[in-house]
């Protein structure tokens, strides 16, 4: 990882390129010069040391055969056996496939929709309407997945659900959406869109509010229509925000959301529904294989890190504005 470059209060930078003279007193001079800033940094460092780094020793159970009674330290080491078992498991390709497909669907469908919704909201001129719509689309975010799943079960219930009837009438079919494996992914993405699209617009709307209004006036004088203005002014203005959000989203990509998928899984769609998160729960909690599921979780995290750095590197290569 490149040394972090941290903006200080004074707008100066410490870390990679310390502005303090490096010749004379070396670090002590530098430290004395910025001691208050370092003091300010201390609580954050302590927080991360205690709550983020110290618990990481628990990750060691991925390389052990953990038994709760024996504790983390008392359980015997087994090296990479848990990882070998996982990669050799016949379920592995299916889990990876299911996780990636869902992740890309969410990224490819739900993420752009957030931007589109933000752009649409931004174009609404009537302030009261804009605010009302904004509030309404935030609400689903605050409902738990249990409620969303229950709603889906009611709406898509076999023979009697209103959406079951409507969609099957329109398509002239008789599909049980809740158990048909082909409809599992669309249903999951649909739920994700319904629940989180509105909430996701917040950051984009914030970024949109900083766009220079003069540019729009200039564009209007030049005869640009609404789409032209969005394309040439709005989108470039929030481009960096989009990229930052995209990198973050990609880092979270493999976290497909345990609750949602667990609740929508049944014997008939498990083939496409099993993802890393549900597998970790199933194997770890219901079978008591803590070490094995920790290994799976660790693998997932490693993939996440690779994805973050990969996307960041790509973003930098193309327009020199990454996350770090």
């Amino acid at each position, binding site marked *: 990882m490149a040394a972090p470059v941290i903006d200080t209060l004074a707008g100066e930078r410490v870390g990679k390129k310390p502005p303090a003279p490096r010749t004379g007193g070396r670090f002590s001079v530098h430290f004395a010069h910025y001691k208050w800033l370092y003091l300010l940094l201390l609580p954050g460092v*302590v927080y991360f040391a205690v709550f983020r780094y110290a618990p990481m020793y628990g990750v060691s159970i991925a390389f052990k055969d953990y038994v709760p*009674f024996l504790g983390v330290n008392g359980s015997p080491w087994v090296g990479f056996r848990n990882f070998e078992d996982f990669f050799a498991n016949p379920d592995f390709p299916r889990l990876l496939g299911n996780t990636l497909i869902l992740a890309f669907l969410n990224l490819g469908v739900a993420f752009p929709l957030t931007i589109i919704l933000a752009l649409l909201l931004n174009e609404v001129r009537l302030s009261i309407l804009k605010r009302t719509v904004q509030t309404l689309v935030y609400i689903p975010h605050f409902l738990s997945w249990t409620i969303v799943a229950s709603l889906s079960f009611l709406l898509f219930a076999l023979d009697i659900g209103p959406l079951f009837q409507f969609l099957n009438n329109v398509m002239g079919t008789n599909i049980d959406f809740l158990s048909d494996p082909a409809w599992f992914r669309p249903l999951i993405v649909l739920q994700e869109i319904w629940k989180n699209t509105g909430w996701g617009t917040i950051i984009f709307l914030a970024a949109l509010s900083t766009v220079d209004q003069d540019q729009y006036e200039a564009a209007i004088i030049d005869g640009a229509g609404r789409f032209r203005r969005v394309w040439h002014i709005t989108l470039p203005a929030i481009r960096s925000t989009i990229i930052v959000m995209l990198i973050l989203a990609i880092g979270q990509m493999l976290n497909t959301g345990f609750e949602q998928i667990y609740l929508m899984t049944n014997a008939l769609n498990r083939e496409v529904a099993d993802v890393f998160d549900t597998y970790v729960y199933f194997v770890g909690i219901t079978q008591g294989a803590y070490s094995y599921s920790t290994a799976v979780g660790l693998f997932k995290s490693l993939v996440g890190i690779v994805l973050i750095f990969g996307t960041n590197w790509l973003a930098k290569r193309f327009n020199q*504005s990454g996350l770090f």
Partner: protein
Amino acid sequence: MKRINPRDSQPFKYPNEVEWKNMIRRKLSLAAAVVTATALTLTACSGGDTPAADLTSVSIMAPFLEAQPPAADGAVQKKLEELTGKQVKINWAPNASYEDKTNITLAGSDIPQVMVIQGKTPGFVKNAQAGAFWDLTDKLDKYPNLKTTFPDIQKNASVNGKVYGVYRGRAPMRAAVMFRQDWLDKLGLQPPKTTEDLYKVAKAFTEQDPDGNGQNDTWGITIPKWGALGTNSPYDLIEEWYGAGNRWTEKDGKLIPSFETDEFLEADRFIKKMVDEKLINPDFATFDSTKWNEPFFNGKGGIIVDVDSRVSVLINLFKQADPNNFQNKVGFVGNLEGPDGKLHAHPTDGYSGFLAIPKASVKTDAELDKVLQFLNTMNGKDVAILLNNGIEGVNFKVEDGKAATIKPETPEGKAVTTDIKSYAQLGMNVAGNEFYPVKQPSDYEQQVFDKRTEVMAADLKSAVYNPAAPFVSQTYVAKGAQLDNIVADARIKYLAGQIDEQGLKDAIKLWDTSGGNKVKEEINKLWQDNK
């Protein structure tokens, strides 16, 4: 150009503005410092809590199945402490997350002296084999109330013969077929005796308009989302009635899983025929099991295959809807004869978990003796009555040897009745039920209750037990749930028509090759060694 440190990026609303960023960062750091300080103080407080040597108090961890755990100063709690002469500290944990809580507790430092363990889950077996609990195999017989009169059930509850706890006895025979008696009468049918009868009744309920509304809107059997193997599901029951055995079955001098028998396939063919002819609710793979009674009560699906206690639940539903006319709505029979003309009744393992004693909190034999003495008192008649019936004169009175609820209910009586629903979780009853049977509120309900007892007692004589119940195979502990899922899912897919019979057979083969063969080997070895 912006630089955002990844750890700070989430709370940002305006990533463009340096000012904002720094303000938030400052606030976060402050908050973090406060959190850290608080956490450190808390850790310092929750240090060691060693139990007293003379055992004036006993701590117990138990699950609660009601909406709320009983109050710590309730009448039942006080009476319990009075009867046992100890301060009883019960740590109630919600049933839904009980096993997680068990593991977290065992890994922690504050371990109770008695833990209710709900079954031989892989987590429990691992802990037990690592030495987390006392081996009580040779110890229980010394305590008059802990010496079981059902040694077979104690053996079922053991881990390969090692008894790690005092089991909680449960009625071993519970399987029943419930049907709408009024529908049956209207169509002039007899209660089913055989699986073939079940098919006929289900077909009549589906096709002959039993509710008389002129519409084809009823079905026979309602089955909820309940796929897992060996969980007394409707599928398990029908398979056992066909003669597939109870989880494991002996064939040619070897134990094989019941799904590797021909009878299993026959039974599933039979169920599939009913699914195909729409005698079973079409959403059986997804139907929410908490709504199981609804189609029965609302006159949609006329048959439920489940435990006999559901009979009372169903009768109560009708009673609440119409207190004057609820008789003869619900009929029931016990286990059904299979196509071979024999009755293979489906019993449970006869226990629901056990009360185990962790070594970490009870360190010496002397301490163990004191805890076992306490459990001995807990298993005596007085405490059994308290835990299951309540307090005589407060919520029940004894009439012809039965516990009758005192009417009208006082607030105190109501509180006791609510509390014992949780306290019953501590009951063991290893020498049979010593408390009073509950007197039913009406003659009709008493008749039904007595008939239930009779039918179940008769069926128990034809029970086919699980010969592998006491045995725990290491491979099964490591991946049994995954393995069983292969067959369980295939069974549902076969019934739903997603795969054909060959697909089901392939899944059973896959069970074998993914580790099942090893499970079979281990179980057979344990079986041979313990013969």
